[in-house]
């Protein structure tokens, strides 16, 4: 009789992983949306006499240096962070994909020239652009986000271009051409939907990356737009107090990590699922 060996494979069902990931992200979003409504505290109203209070029954996660309730601020910050992360990513993916597809589809000297432009854009250190938008438009999530979009699109353009080049000779594109479709129709109805797929795999993780980058910029003093704050700003704002009032940065950091893990799980599930279908 043959002895049958099994590797321990607890997690093989990818859809389960996606589901767990979605649950984490969903729970965070739900808390972010509902929490502030239920909270008795105003996330932005300072109370200097109640600053840096330890977690207590009244303030579950304590108060920050201006006496604001950390939990409520974190929940509101989560809304802003998610919104910012998603918007930034959508903008970069959209711009990048359209430019990249157009460039590749046009071909010839347009491609040759614009590809170099894309390469040059990738070579500009992102921090220069972000610092410039901050200096021009003022400190805040919007400026940092705009700077990130101005830099980020180029990577997606490169990705889309490569994808279109490999698609251009594909039979179904040839077929649409032979049907006499207009180039715009072929591009937007047939090419881009196919191109955007690999970009989306990157994009899901980019939502988290964008939120973390926002946090880094807040640490350098460019991200905070008072009175409301995104997660990163709260973490950065609490960093000077990390040694004395740990609770300010801890919760937003945990939320950010939870979102990262959740999105990562969804992403993994997606990419595996897609691969399976091929």
């Amino acid at each position: 009789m043959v002895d049958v060996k099994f590797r321990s494979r607890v997690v093989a069902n990818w859809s389960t992983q996606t589901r767990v990931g979605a649950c984490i992200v969903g729970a965070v979003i739900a808390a972010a949306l509902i929490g502030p409504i239920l909270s008795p505290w105003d996330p932005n109203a300072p109370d200097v006499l109640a600053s840096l209070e330890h977690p207590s029954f009244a303030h579950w996660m304590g108060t920050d240096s201006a006496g604001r309730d950390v939990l409520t601020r974190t929940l509101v910050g989560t809304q802003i962070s998610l919104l910012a992360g998603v918007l930034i990513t959508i903008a970069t993916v959209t711009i990048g994909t359209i430019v990249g597809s157009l460039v590749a589809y046009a071909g010839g000297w347009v491609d040759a020239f614009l590809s170099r432009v894309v390469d040059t854009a990738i070579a500009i250190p992102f921090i220069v652009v972000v610092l410039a938008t901050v200096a021009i438009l003022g400190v805040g999530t919007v400026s940092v986000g705009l700077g990130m979009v101005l830099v980020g699109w180029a990577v997606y353009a490169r990705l889309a271009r490569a994808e279109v080049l490999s698609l251009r000779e594909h039979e179904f594109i040839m077929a649409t051409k032979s049907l006499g479709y207009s180039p715009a129709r072929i591009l937007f109805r047939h090419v881009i939907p196919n191109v955007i797929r690999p970009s989306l795999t990157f994009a899901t993780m980019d939502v988290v990356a964008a939120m973390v980058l926002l946090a880094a910029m807040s640490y350098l003093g460019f991200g905070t737009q008072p009175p409301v704050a995104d997660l990163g700003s709260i973490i950065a704002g609490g960093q000077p107090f990390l040694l004395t009032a740990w609770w300010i940065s801890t919760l937003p950091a945990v939320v950010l990590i939870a979102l990262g893990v959740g999105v990562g799980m969804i992403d993994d599930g997606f990419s595996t699922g897609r691969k399976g279908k091929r």
Partner: protein
Amino acid sequence: MKFRSPISIAAGVALAVSLVGCSTAGGPTKPDASEGLCTSTPVAGGSITVAKQTETLSLSPYSTPGGFGDTEALNMIFETLIRMDPTGNSQDLVSGVADTWSTSADGLAYTFHIRDGATFSNGRHVMADDVKYSLDSWSDPDVSQWASFARGYDSTTVVDDSTVKINMTEPIGGFLYSLAMVSAGILPQEEAKAAGDSFFDSPIGSGPFAVDKWVKGSSISFVKNDWYWDTSGPLLDSVEFRFVSDDNNRTLALRSGDVQMVDNVPWSQVKTLQSEASLTIEEFAIPSWILLSLNNQKGPFADQNVRQALSLAIDREGVNEKIYFGMGEAPNSILPRLRLDADASTIAPTAFDLNKAKELIAASKYPNGFEATLEYPSGNAAFDSLAVVLQAYWAELGVTIELLPEDQGTLSKNFTGGTYDIMLPYSFAASDVPVPDEFAEFYAVQGGTNGFFTWWNDPEIEALVLDFTGTVGDEERAAKWPAIQAAMLEAQPAINVLNLPLVNGHLNNVCGFSTNPIGQSTFTTTWIAG
């Protein structure tokens, strides 16, 4: 539920277990080890590394883009004719390169005698020609960005090798204090001329220390000037400044023993560090304050009632207690604590009086309040809190504030360009001299800095200030100043939110550390115990 061990929980999310060992917070009563260690006789030798918040960018006394980081390093290297008291015990002037000096009765001439022992770190004696060269450079606007502080300086006459006479175009009351600023430090003429611009890469001065190694961006180290005239100090063989701009990192470096001393202990960590048995936290009273600038060109702030109301509506005690952890002090001036100031019993510190503030607003041209922006440096933890708190206080007056944190470049442009409404222009504001002359002129005298960019204009007070700054005798000056102090406080062109000290921390075995009255560390009496 209360947590007792803040550090271990701070990192607890990631690595709680490994951190338990580092939470060394002592018991309820902390034995004052430093006193025990430092009571013995000072010993010479040893070295010390200090983590400094501000980087040294330049070692030229005439160009100090690095601000305090530059002047403090320069103060180690160069010595001025007369000095601000290096012990910080008084706001008086003491001898330096010159051991004796005299002022002519009309205030138009000063005579200095160069002390016999005054020697540059290369062993060459300080000559009158060196003094003349240095002061001429200092006062030349093409050479020195500090030339405007040499107002009234006409020329230096070399009387003999060890005597110089400074000739003035007009009497200037604070001139001796200007001479004590490090930008008027004495350079060796020949060496400086021979080396040209490169002289300032490794300058030679007659101060207590000489540059040993300058790793730009990272650290600068000094060795004792063996030729220094004062045989009682310095005691240390060498001092290293390490530039550590991150607040947490600076205190971590101290706690890990990487450095023996840090400057500018972050307010929020003072109490924690005080409770560490191995550390000593010291406060130094320096002319530093939270400068809140009001743009008097703009509608509401042209109204004195509004300006006073804004100041009265600030609960300074609350701000001090909760944001500055009790380290600050409510001011009785729009300027920081300075020499000749009237004390609190003569001029009362501004009290928190919301009702009076509301009355003032009601009596102003803006009884229903107004909208304004508050600009402040981004990335400063205390200011982040202060700004939202001010916003809340002023909301009580019907004033709606929009908060605009900004980077230094934007802040500077809006400040000097006069486009702001209300601004906290500096993370750290301090007077360059311990006397009121500098900022009294900035605010009250037209031209130059436009009322220190408040565009405030009060001819009466201007006349008083000009009279004061033109007065040479100490007693006369002391008689004139308090009235100006009171008048400026009432006019309130700008607001002093709090006077702040300089807070340093060091290991218990670092003894005899002091700063001069404007907060520059002097290491001449510092020694290492045990």
